[in-house]
């Protein structure tokens, strides 16, 4: 036997370095956004993004919109 050691891929493609964008709609809660996504305001200006995973307000009463501050839990917001 000689030559290069075969590399087992284990099936499928290797993951990209940057995580694929995903949005998780949390039951009775915010939208969790992961991956390479730019969040902008209505004028197209990027909204500062301080963490890899962010939660976008879905109930409308967050004091730090567009991000979630947990207030949905205090107002009985449901997505059902």
């Amino acid at each position, binding site marked *: 036997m000689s030559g290069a050691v075969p590399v087992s891929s284990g099936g499928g493609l290797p993951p990209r370095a940057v995580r694929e964008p995903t949005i998780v709609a949390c039951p009775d809660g915010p939208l969790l956004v992961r991956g390479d996504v730019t969040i902008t305001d209505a004028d197209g200006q990027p909204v500062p993004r301080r*963490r890899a995973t962010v939660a976008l307000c879905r109930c409308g009463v967050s004091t730090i919109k567009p991000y*979630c*501050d*947990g207030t949905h839990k205090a107002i009985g917001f449901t997505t059902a």
Partner: protein
Amino acid sequence: MPRGPLSLAVLDLLGSGRVHGTDGAGLTETARRVTERSTDLLTDDDVQLSLYVMYELFYRGFEGVDDEWEWDPVLLSARAVVERALEQHLAERVPVPDGVVPQRDAVADALFALTAPTPGPSVARYVAKRASLEQLHEFLIHRSIYQLKEADPHTWAIPRLLGQPKAALVEIQADEYGGGDPGRMHYELFARTMRGAGLDDQYGAYVERVPAVTLAGVNVMSLFGLHRRWRGATAGHLACFEMTSSLPNRLYGDGFRRHGFDQGTTWYFDEHVEADAVHEQIAGRDLAGALAQSEPELLEDILFGAATCLYLDGLAGDHVLSAWEADVSSLRLP
């Protein structure tokens, strides 16, 4: 300074040149005697300080104390006696939700229900509306015992988890540690808040000032974090911690703004309003929920860990509020 026979024995041992592994002074026996006689382990200063010191050897240790003590069999034996007593104490008192099935969403729902915001007096509301500058200082001093090592006790669980729960815990903890930016690590932000308020931000600076009930909250995190058998409780504890954080932190920030503190000082609280609204979603479903689904035998522990977090937070809150309402200090006298 020791607070009774057990902490005296522990501190004596650490300060002695004694050979490791020899129990000439009968430390384990002292631990047994002290825990058996204790009327309430969670408010027992001697017991909680002893446990705090023994656990601290696993974090940053103590200046002038040999790191070998971390795995000293005598200390571990005495610690085990205290831990078993504490576990029993909690099991007899902490109300744990029942009727929960080990499925991801069911567990997350149960945890969100357990931690749902409640009306009525709370430390957060008091801080927001009424706390004096001195009381704000007290608040930071209590919090400093954990917040200057924020996230560390739960990090112990990472190697003990697999798959989705592990990834979820890493995702949360990475954010706790500032996403790799040293200046944004949460414990660094807390140190900044302490400096902004004119307090000593040195690790452990205020241990002597905090009562047993404050130490108990941190000790239970270490108890859960340092034992593989309690990995479910660690997951539940973290989920509960995150779920009871965003809304109070907004109020804490309000209290400091009310006293005119700048944005650098309130950064820690503002950061937690946003961060923990993310973390609670991950911790509820991807950590605790997914763990219960993949290891159903851990369900009870997950719920116990969460309920214990809530229970201890309640005890500590009652202590602080009753002192403040009576216009006395919630700290120990210097």
